[in-house]
């Protein structure tokens, strides 16, 4: 074998090795996800049945019982946080994409970035001080406020990033028809960015659905089916936390079941997000 031939041979071999390494490493990065899914499904799926989803928890020692109040509570909390964060977040996002250079935009963007970095437990304390203390009670409302604060940055950023991608020519086309600025924003620019904003909202929901820390001293948890937003309310993560840290093995099983329900919900949201982005994407 000549010198050149040997060197070419070596290069081909190095190429193959390199490719093998990146494939292996990317496989490695999806392993944890599958392990988690496997473990939770294995331990959780056997618990999940209609009774589990539709009944309240039973006292220690009694067999069965469900997490209906936690599922209801989680949906309630998501609705509340949605109300607190989505309108505010979308309008802030519109502002950021419309007035990119201004001082207020800079300040807003900075605050949103910092807000996103604040640990969730701290946001829980803030909601405790702002809502729980003045109102004198743990409540679904305070939990909604805490989760809303957590969701806000996700929605602001998704809205801003999406609207930035809407071409200026659409705005010009609308204004040139004698359409006012607010109508142009609401009826032309926003619909063009709808898929991005929707997926931002869904990701925001997926993010807060699994939050435990901010709920510990706001929503607090409750063994009852509570429909009053001024009273403590249960949620899936709180249920998991309380059951998993209890000394009773049958409660541990319930925690696995609740984990399975929660992760199915979050996974479903993520899949729906992908679908929404794909289906509703607007071609410019």
């Amino acid at each position, binding site marked *: 074998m000549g010198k050149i031939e040997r060197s070419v041979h070596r290069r081909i071999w190095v190429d193959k090795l390199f490719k093998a390494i990146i494939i292996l490493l990317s496989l490695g990065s999806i392993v944890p996800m599958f392990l988690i899914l496997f473990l939770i499904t294995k331990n959780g799926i056997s618990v999940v049945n209609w009774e589990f989803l539709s009944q309240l928890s039973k006292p220690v020692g009694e067999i069965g019982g469900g997490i209906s109040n936690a599922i209801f509570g989680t949906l309630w909390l998501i609705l509340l946080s949605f109300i607190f964060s989505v309108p505010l977040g979308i309008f802030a996002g519109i502002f950021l994409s419309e007035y990119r250079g201004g001082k207020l935009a800079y300040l807003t963007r900075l605050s949103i970035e910092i807000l996103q970095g604040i640990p969730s437990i701290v946001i829980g304390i803030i909601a405790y001080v702002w809502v729980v203390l003045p109102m004198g009670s743990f409540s679904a409302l305070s939990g909604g406020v805490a989760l809303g604060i957590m969701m806000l940055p996700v929605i602001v950023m998704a809205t801003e990033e999406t609207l930035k991608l809407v*071409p200026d*020519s*659409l*705005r*010009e*086309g*609308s*204004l*040139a*028809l*004698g*359409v*006012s600025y607010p*109508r*142009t924003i609401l*009826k*032309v620019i926003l*619909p*063009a960015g*709808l898929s991005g904003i929707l997926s931002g909202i869904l990701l925001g929901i997926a993010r807060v659905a699994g939050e435990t820390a901010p709920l510990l001293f706001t929503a607090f948890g409750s063994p009852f089916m509570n429909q009053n937003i001024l009273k403590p309310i249960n949620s899936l993560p709180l249920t998991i936390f309380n059951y998993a840290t209890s000394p009773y093995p049958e409660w541990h099983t319930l925690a696995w079941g609740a984990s399975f329900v929660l992760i199915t919900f979050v996974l479903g949201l993520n899949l729906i997000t992908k679908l929404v982005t794909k289906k509703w994407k*607007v*071609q*410019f």
Partner: protein
Amino acid sequence: MESSVLKIENFGASFGEHTILKDINLYFSRNTLTAIMGPSGCGKTTLIRCINRMHELVPNARVSGKILLDNQDIYNTDAIIVRRQIGMVFQRPNPFPTMSIYDNVIAGYKLNGIKLRKEEMDRTVEESLRKAALWEEVKDALHRRGSFLSGGQQQRLCIARALAMHPEVLLLDEPTSALDPKSTAHIEELVSQLKNGVTIIQVTHNIAQAARVSDFTAFIYLGELVESGPTARMFTGPKDKRTEEYLTGKFG
């Protein structure tokens, strides 16, 4: 000229420190097609954007002088009213991607919240699409989104959208610069027919196109109106040396 529908008098425009246009005087007769030509960066696009106040989207934009539409100063009228009377079609087709073809044509009404009866809407849509020579091609797909249309068809849809508002003046900002030769020919033919019902001002940096389609031509160079007049006269006997040099391809 008493028949002028639009008059530009002693008009100047600037963005911040940059003066783009100075001392422009131009009259446009009703139902004629005027081509505004000149090399890139001469200010011709700025001029027509000033005519429906679209230049105001740029911060620091300032104007001096007057633009009169039917002897009404457009700078003393609400910009929204001005833009409904003076329609505009842009360089790149920009149909609204979230709307059907039908809704695109009457977007000016829908977006403005102007309620029309179903028959009125149907009639406006058909009329406008016929005027824009697009009706035959899309009449069976009115309620589909316009994204499957070709570039030339999309541009005709944008023309239909502007015509649906029954504007007095239609501004075309290099409407064929993003199109292939066949679509360009189609649009040129369409534009020559349209001038029977609307005054058209078309910006172009394509000299041959100006010669083909326009009744009057204005030549702008470095922000100044060098010369204007009937197209045939301009192309056969330009008065200004710079016009002649531009037309013969010495610069631009």
